[in-house]
């Protein structure tokens, strides 16, 4: 897939939030603090590709998606959609972007207007892009609902009348309604029952195969990443620390953080593994050196002074670590 046309490209994207200290500091005695949510992100998503974005909460995954979709302006660097800056798409290109790219939100319920029925919610993108006649709308919505495993009478229900798993399904049906080529999903299956999660994962995988969807999938579950996505990008504190083919990365992680994430996932009948110490710090006023140094079991002297860039190793894998796990 490496030669397919890139759909999204992030070129050294940075996103810095100014944190207002509030109160007296507004009077200008101290400058506002800088929160670097994203720092030097480089990422390419090609047509037909599936990319998983993993990392602890607060590592910048959602911010990356928002920049990618043009919902949040980057502070530096460029976000390209099919070669054009996402912020300044021409009307034609923007229309194709709106139709070809669909987002599934982390909080599916919040992403659906509580005062509209499923029919209108799922029908909205269909009407918007004039994909069918009004008289055919109901059938089309029913077909979409069937595709996500819901009965046709769901069309007449409001989101408040559906369970968490059902709301996710409606949100997915809605995302599929505009016949998108790219689906971008933020934690689309987390917090669900194992059975519902498994059903939805199979659904997404089926769509991927049938429709050749490009998938960008945020998850904190490495097993979900490996089930759905060919490529993986591991994030820590606003940076991508390791990226490559999912199976390889998870089989032989190069970055100590990737290995820590792997160890932490529960495994049947194995004792709870030695855990990663501490918690992800806040990305405010970061010290120099590797961001992971404070929790890294391999941290050496140079880690605290040199920031490792995301570099290609001899195995054609990319990792940002001065002492990667190549042994």
């Amino acid at each position, binding site marked *: 897939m490496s030669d397919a046309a890139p759909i999204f490209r992030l070129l050294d994207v940075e996103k810095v939030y100014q944190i207002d200290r509030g109160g007296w500091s507004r009077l200008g005695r101290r400058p506002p603090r800088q929160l670097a949510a994203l720092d030097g992100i480089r990422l390419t998503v090609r047509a037909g590709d599936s990319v998983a974005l993993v990392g602890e909460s607060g590592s910048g995954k959602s911010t990356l998606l928002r920049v990618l*979709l043009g*919902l949040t302006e980057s502070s530096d660097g460029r976000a390209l959609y099919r070669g054009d800056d996402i912020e300044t798409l021409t009307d034609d290109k*923007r*229309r194709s972007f*709106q*139709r070809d*790219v*669909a*987002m599934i*939100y982390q*909080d599916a319920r*919040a*992403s*659906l*207007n*509580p*005062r*509209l029925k499923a029919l*209108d919610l799922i029908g*909205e*993108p269909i009407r*918007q*892009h004039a994909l069918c006649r009004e008289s055919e709308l109901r059938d089309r919505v029913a077909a979409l609902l069937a595709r996500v*495993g*819901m*009965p046709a009478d769901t069309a007449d229900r*409001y989101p*408040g*009348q*559906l*369970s*968490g*798993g*059902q709301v996710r399904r409606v949100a997915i049906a809605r995302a599929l309604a*505009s016949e998108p080529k790219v689906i971008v999903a933020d934690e689309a299956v987390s917090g669900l029952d194992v059975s519902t999660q498994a059903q939805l994962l199979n659904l997404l995988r089926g769509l991927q195969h049938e429709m050749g969807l490009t998938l960008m999938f945020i998850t904190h579950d490495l097993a979900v990443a490996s089930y759905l996505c060919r490529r993986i990008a591991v994030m820590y504190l606003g940076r991508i620390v390791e990226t490559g083919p999912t199976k390889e990365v998870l089989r032989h992680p190069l970055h100590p953080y990737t290995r820590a994430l792997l160890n932490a996932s529960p495994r049947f009948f194995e004792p709870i593994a030695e855990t990663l110490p501490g918690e992800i710090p806040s990305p405010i006023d970061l010290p120099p050196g590797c961001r992971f140094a404070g929790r890294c079991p391999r941290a050496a002297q140079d880690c605290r002074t040199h920031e490792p860039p995301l570099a290609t190793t001899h195995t054609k894998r990319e990792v940002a670590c001065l002492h990667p796990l190549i042994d």
Partner: protein
Amino acid sequence: MAIRDLSGADRGVRLRAPTLLRFLARQLDARPFFVIATVISLAFLFAAIFAPWVAPYAPNFQDPDALMAPPSAAHWCGTDSFGQDLLSRVIFGTRYVFLIGFSSVVIGAAGGLAIGLAAGLTHGAVEWGLMRFVDAILALPSLIMAIAFISILGPGIDKVIYAVGFAMIGPFARTVRADVLQVRAQAFVEAAGLMGVDRLRIIWRHILPNVVFPLAVQATIRIAEAILVSSALSFLGLGVVPPAPDWGLMISEGRAFISIVPWISGVPGAALALLLISLSIVGDGVREQFDPKLRANR
């Protein structure tokens, strides 16, 4: 597939199709005050609509044999200084009360919706200008505001409606704008934008319905305030002109005799107090019913 959590689901269904009576029956147990207040308010409304059939006398019929008569079999609530039956006048007065209350709230809510929506959806100078206008209305109590208006427009029932309605635009606009800002930040608005739904459509389908509903609840609460302000205007002689059987006017007429024949002011006064208290309780109850946060705590 089966529905997992029915508790949430059928609550939603029930909300949508309430026949008032069944609703009241279920509520009587849980909230007796709300039910009593609703019944009283409905009784007043009934009296207003069917006044000619309910009232024993015409509102301006003067009984020369019973000037300032105390309550009796012929005049249940007594008569005033012209010998007019107080009960009948109070009953006919409910028509003014509701007419003024509803109409002015409709004006206030409509104006508030327009201004609040505009202020919530714009930035910069337009928003600033609109909000200063709203602040100006809010700076004065609604009664003072209405008095100022009447002094320009002159007295009369239609003028009272305009004046009270205008004074209500301020508070309505404030809440609408706050709601718009809150709804606008919701993920479903952003999601619609991402799908390419255009701005007007987003406002019409996604923002407006989520703003209008709380506005309607707010309006039921504000009816009582509108009635109070309009009665105060009449009491001050600035509103409805005599001999119309307006409650404020009647209280004012009886004021001179308050120590010897207290019922002339007392009857319309009691009616006003009863209606206002009932409407407030109803308004609170409606809000409680539809505000998910309050409901969860019950």
